[in-house]
């Protein structure tokens, strides 16, 4: 049975495509964006998350850890990563949920059950399922299986991708997808490398190829002041979007909010927000106006 590593399931998801949706977040991403809101989505492995504010210092995890990898300190629980084998017992026994394992293997059958359970909301709202991540296409076999099964049941399928995947795979996915949410960070390759660790060449090419198939695509652009809100990038982006084949693409602008700090702390990772800022209303309005000059339909949010 096919299984995929899921780190979150969102019901009543209203910003991931039409209607009321259920969104599955696959773990593992091909990009490493500095502003990522879901840092736990990046690694393709199960990770441990620890919230010191939930911890009551009972020490249950310390006692139960088979590898004696945990220590209770004044700052909370500290994990010796050399001893820890990520077995997850600490999360299981933690009475407050201060320790959680991010990522669990879910079978296609179980995922389908969860999806079908939401049928009433799809029926009433014209909603469906959204596969997001991380990068869902990294879980290609599972994704294809899920998309086929949803297709058989007439469930609307949305795939949220960052586009850095094999072109063949992307086009196979496209045959089974009703709507793509395609993330576009910025046009300049060097900057892209600097902020996401990877080149955007393939991402841009894939989007062009995908557009030629006639696929329904909404382009999602995170707006991070100091990163991609400069005139040059906006103009280039608008030009690029206008040049895409097929139906005119709708653009969703997602203004950056600095809310991820807590999640990084939970993962025991550093979060460097230097150089990144929240765009103000004026800036957002001027960007919307620019896109409008290219006759591109723009929605702020979702």
């Amino acid at each position, binding site marked *: 049975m096919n299984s995929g590593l899921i780190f979150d399931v969102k019901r009543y*998801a209203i910003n991931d495509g039409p209607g*009321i949706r259920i969104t599955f977040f696959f773990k593992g991403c091909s990009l490493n964006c500095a502003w990522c809101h879901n840092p736990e989505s990046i690694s393709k492995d199960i990770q441990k998350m620890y919230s010191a504010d939930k911890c009551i210092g009972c020490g*249950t995890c310390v006692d139960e850890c088979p590898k004696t990898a945990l220590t209770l300190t004044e700052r909370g629980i500290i994990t010796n990563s050399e001893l820890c084998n990520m077995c997850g017992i600490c999360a299981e026994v933690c009475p*407050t949920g201060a320790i959680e394992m991010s990522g669990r293997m879910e079978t296609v059958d179980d995922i389908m059950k969860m999806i079908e*359970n939401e049928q009433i909301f799809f*029926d*009433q709202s014209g*909603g469906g399922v959204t596969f997001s991540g991380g990068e869902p296409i990294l879980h290609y076999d599972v994704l294809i299986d899920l998309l086929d099964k949803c297709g058989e049941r007439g469930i609307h399928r949305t795939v949220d991708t960052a586009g850095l995947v094999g072109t063949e795979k992307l086009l196979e996915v496209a045959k089974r997808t009703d709507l793509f949410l395609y993330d576009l960070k910025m046009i300049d390759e060097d900057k892209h490398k600097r902020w996401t660790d990877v080149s955007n060449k393939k991402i841009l090419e894939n989007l062009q190829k995908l557009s030629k198939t006639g696929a329904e695509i909404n382009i999602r652009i995170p707006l991070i002041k100091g990163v991609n809100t400069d005139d040059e990038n906006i103009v280039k982006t608008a030009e690029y979007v206008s040049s895409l084949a097929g139906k005119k693409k709708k653009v969703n602008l997602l203004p950056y909010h600095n809310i991820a700090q807590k999640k990084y702390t939970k993962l025991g990772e550093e979060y460097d927000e230097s150089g990144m800022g929240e765009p103000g209303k004026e800036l957002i309005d001027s960007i919307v106006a620019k896109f409008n000059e290219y006759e591109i339909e723009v929605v702020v949010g979702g």
Partner: protein
Amino acid sequence: MFEKINSHNEVPAREAKAEGNYYNSSKPAIDPGMNERIQKLRKISYETEPSISIERALHLTEFYKANYGKYSIPVLRAMSFLDHCKKKTIYIGEGELIVGERGPSPKTIPTFPELTCHSVEDLNTLNDRELQKYHVSEDDINTYAEEVIPYWEGKTQRERIFDHVPKEWKAAYEAGIFTEFMEQRAPGHTALDGEIYKKGMLDYKIEISEHLASLDYMNDKEATDKADELKAMDIACDAAILFAERHAEQAEKFALEEDNPKRKEELKKIAEVCRWVPAKAPRNFWEAIQMYWFVHLGTITELNGWDAMNPGHFDQHLAPFYEKEIEENNLTRDEAKELLSCFWIKVNNHPAPPKVGVTAKESGTYNDFTNINIGGLKRDGSDGTNEVSYIMLEIIEELHVLQPGNSIHISAKTPDKFLKAGVKVIRQGHGYPSVFNPDIYIQEMIRQGKSIEDAREGGCSGCIEVGAFGKEAYLLTGYLNVPKILEVTLNNGIDPVTGKTVGIETGDPKNFKSFEELYSAFLKQLNFIVDLKIQVSNYIDRMFAKYAPAPFLSVVINDCISKGKDYYDGGPRYNTSYIQCCGLGTVTDSLAAIKKHVYENQKIDMPKLLEAVSNNFKGEEVLRQTIMNKTPFFGNDDDYADNIAVTVYNDLLDAIDGRPNIKDGGKYHLNMLSTTCHIYFGKVLGATPNGRLAGKSISDGTSPSHGADTHGPSAVIKSLSKLDQVKSGGTLLNQRFLPSLLKRDEDIKKLGSLIRSYFTLGGHHIQFNIVDTATLLAAQKCPEDYKDLLVRMAGYSDYFNDMNADLQQEVIERTENDAF
């Protein structure tokens, strides 16, 4: 989990004094409202503080002193009502179009000493208490002490009730296992159908005289009683006509003195309207509203029945008048809206009669629960929405006043356009309108034995309780503290909070070998308590039939005239008594915790759990956290917990549903509302096995426990839909959403779809608070800046600042839904 406040936003999403969509703040405005008249009237209504008027009590006492014993009780009551209508102060305020007040001026509330005679101490409490304060002057207190109190000593309903009740009842009542609705206020929950728009009081008088003439004294032993009741109804009709005519006289007098020609005409028009209604059936939109308003005032002056009075499907009743006059060019949309706005403000002028003691706790609000039903179905089953429905939504959003409460009724036949308009008002975050599902409540009523047409014409009054409007007495008798019954079971019949015996011995839970054994002990306690409750409720019912009949109310409720019987004596076509069960979430989660950890995992043994609970989890935080985080709780679409909820719900139904209420074939039915009683019930409850600490609120209505629902609103809806809601007379689901979830137009559509989904699955009711925690916290800190912050309690909205700290905390702790 229960105490923690999670907030994503530091900055309140709703700015202080933010206004509704329709309200144009750029105009120089006195107050919200469509024009200067409405703004001024709203301002008076909003700013006037409630006070007590002793006028009614003085008239009543004087009348009883002089006449008690001369007439039958119904006739005495009707004559006393007539006497008061003859003497009471008439108020016509500046700029008013719809006229009439229960007291001598807006927001003055009479007392009802025949039911509960407030002591000097009570009056001082009302004057001094911090919340739900009612001003009463020193002079009035002295007059009350001299004229009113001495006469009523030992003769009030409240004394009759408390003198009668068995000691087991008293013990359970004092422990907070249940409350008693009728100890200070008369039974009510009454709404009207469309009859008063087709018949005037003179028509009713003809009907009454025909029935009087046809009484069969030869064979019917009740004929004499019926004659007394019918005579009383006839007098009550005269009282209402007289009351209106006194307004006409006043208006004519003011018209003579008035210099402003426009106002002069208005006053003349008011006089004309008041000469016509309620004596005769209304001919136009204005008269129709004034007709209802006089009937409303008559009902709430005659007695202080719960939930005031309710026009029912007011939009449907007004539509024919509106459509005809628009067609004939005698009325503009704005004129209609202005008249309706005047009506809205009239209702807001009438806070609930003052309550004290436990009753003040179970219903701690100024709101008197008039609930305007908007939309829904017509008697013939077709869609009932019309232009008046939309005008009403506009007024609700524009005025955002405390009263009247209002609800939109969304059948599968209701157009999306109306749902969308309703959700837009919900988005404003005043906690209304609430949303009801006619397709389900019609089934509820048919199951209770109503005809399909009567059921369609029915709806919800008060909070969420259903009834056949204009044809039914559906009385709430009191709340049942279901988690408390579990607590008593876990203590073998003893209330651990007071140490007193309040239940029966059902065995020491430490010896129970299985969950089933524990559960069957719980059921034994439950049935014992329900029996106690019903015995006394039936007694109280008879006390009202005998000592406090309501002949005026009986005129307008079918079939009191044809039966010759009072509203309280089985006169209505249908007679229902409800017992309102509180805390389904708390009791379900507690049972789930015991089942899971004591009997299945066996990780916690019963003595340890009981000890931890009795010590309020002191020193047992690990245990408490384990329970809270490792137990499947109700509201997450998890069958483990949901099945327990279904079992408890079905057993509550078994214990209550179908028990006779000794009124003309009437029966008891289950109801699941809580008003503010979940706070009071929490106060008298120790810690519970679900990890809830002693004194904390229990869950409200059929909502999940605070913070227990962690899978979003669609999961909550799925859980709730597992209850066979058709078998109750109402369930209540509270949902709190962050304003950011309703920012865009498409979000409104999606919330509409969520509502449709719940209703397709069989949900009865859902209501929303669209407010973030930051706003609530800010309002607690700076109440002055958030004077107009209305929030949804349980079946009605209330000003956040009028709520006590416990209630405020309860709203803050409700799960904040955030789908991002």
